[in-house]
């Protein structure tokens, strides 16, 4: 076991993702490394806007693979996720081939012979040419492998989960008419969930379970640094610690990383030299998405700014 240098490989993952502008924590990097090593999907849970979907994009960009995305919603079914028969094409072909069929069967003296001849042609109309691959099947057919993102799995129905089990554990799907389609190269599968409903144990068991929470202050500063390069270091520190203060409040929707980045962009755009009281009040709606939340935060703004700048002095 001495020849394995996992820490080096995990650092490689970290820097690889960082090159794509995704600053990953150690745990995320470990998950990505393990997913590749033991070929298991990653189930990413966490609040909205912490970069669950971004992670899949970053992995795809880093490995130079195609990303196939399946957005889940209520009522998503096999025909939209897995495959569908091209009915129109089937119909068209039967019409075109009508004469040909007559020719082929023309020589047969009896009905039974004609039927036997027809059997010899096999199921021409239920062959690969007539299958319309949907995201899941597409992902299996990529020769160079791909990143398959199954987004917001918690939005789909419980039955859809069962549909995924085969593809998640064995990287294959079974089409009754064609047989089993096995992945050419096992895709890297990322599932995301906002925990709107509890996922089934069978699904969870097949995945690595990664929870991405709000990042620590240092990490969030690095994320802002990588995403919004134009922002000054002092302002960055101030705004991140301000947001961390806001997250201690009991709000309907806490600001997450995507809001932090948006806010940083806004502050840069407004050319704010530092976090001012008025500035924050004017731009609070970038950070908070509910009127009630803004009202709850308003009275605290001065205290938070004071705290943030104090921390800036000492930290």
């Amino acid at each position, binding site marked *: 076991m001495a020849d394995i240098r*996992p*820490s080096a490989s995990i650092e490689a993952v970290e820097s690889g993702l960082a090159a794509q502008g995704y600053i990953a924590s*150690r745990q995320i990097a470990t*998950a990505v490394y393990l997913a590749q*090593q033991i070929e298991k999907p990653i189930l990413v849970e966490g609040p909205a806007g912490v970069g669950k979907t971004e992670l899949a994009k970053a992995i795809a960009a880093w490995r130079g693979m195609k990303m196939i995305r399946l957005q889940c919603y209520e009522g998503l079914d096999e025909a939209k996720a897995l495959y569908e028969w091209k009915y129109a094409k089937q119909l068209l072909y039967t019409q075109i081939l009508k004469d040909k069929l007559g020719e082929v069967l023309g020589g047969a003296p009896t009905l039974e012979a004609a039927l036997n001849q027809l059997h010899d042609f096999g199921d021409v109309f239920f062959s690969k040419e007539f299958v319309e691959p949907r995201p899941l099947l597409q992902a299996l057919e990529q020769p160079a492998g791909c990143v398959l993102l199954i987004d917001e799995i918690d939005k789909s*129905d419980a039955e859809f989960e069962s549909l995924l089990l085969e593809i998640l554990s064995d990287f294959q799907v079974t089409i009754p008419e064609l047989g089993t389609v096995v992945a050419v190269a096992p895709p890297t599968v990322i599932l995301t969930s906002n925990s709107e409903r509890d996922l089934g144990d069978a699904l969870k068991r097949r995945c690595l*379970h990664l929870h991405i929470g709000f990042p620590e202050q240092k990490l969030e500063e690095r994320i802002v640094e990588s995403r919004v390069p134009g922002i000054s270091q002092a302002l960055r520190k101030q705004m991140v610690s301000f947001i961390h203060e806001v997250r201690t409040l009991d709000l309907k929707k806490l600001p997450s990383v995507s809001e932090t980045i948006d806010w940083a962009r806004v502050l840069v755009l407004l050319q704010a030299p530092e976090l001012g009281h008025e500035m924050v009040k004017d731009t609070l709606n970038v950070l908070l998405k509910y009127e009630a939340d803004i009202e709850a935060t308003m009275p605290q703004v001065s205290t938070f700014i004071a705290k943030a700048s104090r921390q800036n002095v000492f930290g």
Partner: protein
Amino acid sequence: MRENLHRFFRAARGAGVRLSPAESIDAMRAVSKVGFADRTILRDTFLLTLAKTQDEKKALGDCFDLFFDQPEPQSPPEDRKADEQDAEGSNGASDSPGDASGGDEQAEGLGQLAQMLLAQDRNQISAAIANAASAASLPDIRYFTQRGIFSGRILDQMGIQRLRDDLDNLAATNPALAERLTNALDGLRGTVRDTVSQALMLYGREEAENLRNEILRNAPLSRIEPRQVDQMRHLIRQIARRLRERYSKPRKRQRRGHLDVRRTIRRNAAWGGVPFLTAWKRRHRDKPKIVALCDVSGSVARVSDFFLLLIHSLHEVVDDVRSFAFSGHLIEVSDILESKSPEEAMAEIMSKVGFGSSDYGNSFDDFEREWMNAITPQTTVIVLGDARSNNLDPRADILRRIAERSKRLVWLNPEGRMAWGWGDSEMPRYSTFCTVVRQCATAKQLERAVSDIVASYQ
């Protein structure tokens, strides 16, 4: 190493993380990829592969820290590192006083254990304890009462018999050495004891907790000791959570099914009966509607706490619950239960109507006058109480009307069946109108009763 992993999995189960064999296989595969060199990576690996929720992640993290927490031994050989974890936290204890100078020559002819103790080689001692512990199958420890047995077994494995013989011999020939050995032996006993305690903490927690909960579930609610009340509340909350998980799943209306021929033809009349639009038969499903009446009078004061707690949890499971509390008169408490935490709500309800002497007749009368229209043919009415009405008019006629209006009337009585009808109990008179009458004295019975009620709507 694999042995250690298995022990860790067992400890993790003890900590409340649900682990299937498939998950442990995955974890093994993952561990074989990352190795043991970096503990934070190993920890992350376990968290990723084994834990499936945030709670589990936390429990598993704590368990990991406990399991692999050990004071760094001096110059640890890499491959033995894990073998020593059984002796964790106890290396210091094996440090017996006494000068290590001299005596090595006299150690000739002594048993292995005696030599080891005299040499004061901590790593060797730890390893020996670990080996003896696994030979004595220490991870099988379940209850705290087994501590003595396991300590004895481990010491036996390490060859304490031979050590005693050596001590006897030495006492005659070399008293100084004998004393040193005795001290070392005391230290060793301490170390083994610590090892066993820790194993108990790791492996015995699940069993101990299960045993305690099992006893508690079957204990009569009215005779719970004050120090158990908190545990009991915890247990009731667990029950409530289980009920919620089982019954609060959003149920979709059945979309597929049989063709509703009549409606299909009707709908397609415009096209001469050619069925362009299809209509499907739907199964009708009642939404649960519950009206709960809870006695909070002095005679059931000790139980009503738990009743209210359970009603509180019912409010979380079922949308349409109206709850009422009464002793001398009756008030509606739905708002209090819905807006406040269980403890606050219970205190408020108790201060409003609690602890009086109960008057079922008057309370039923209050209910009929004010809230009778809350009962529809889909409603289940639950009455929680002992039906002891202090010899006042029981007004069973109102209960009859309630029963007639509702889908079901369930009476949960904390008293045993034997007591019904004795003294001022009006149970026999009331029970004629009830769909179900249950004795409900323990947490287990309470869970069964509520589960049945909610299940009847599924």
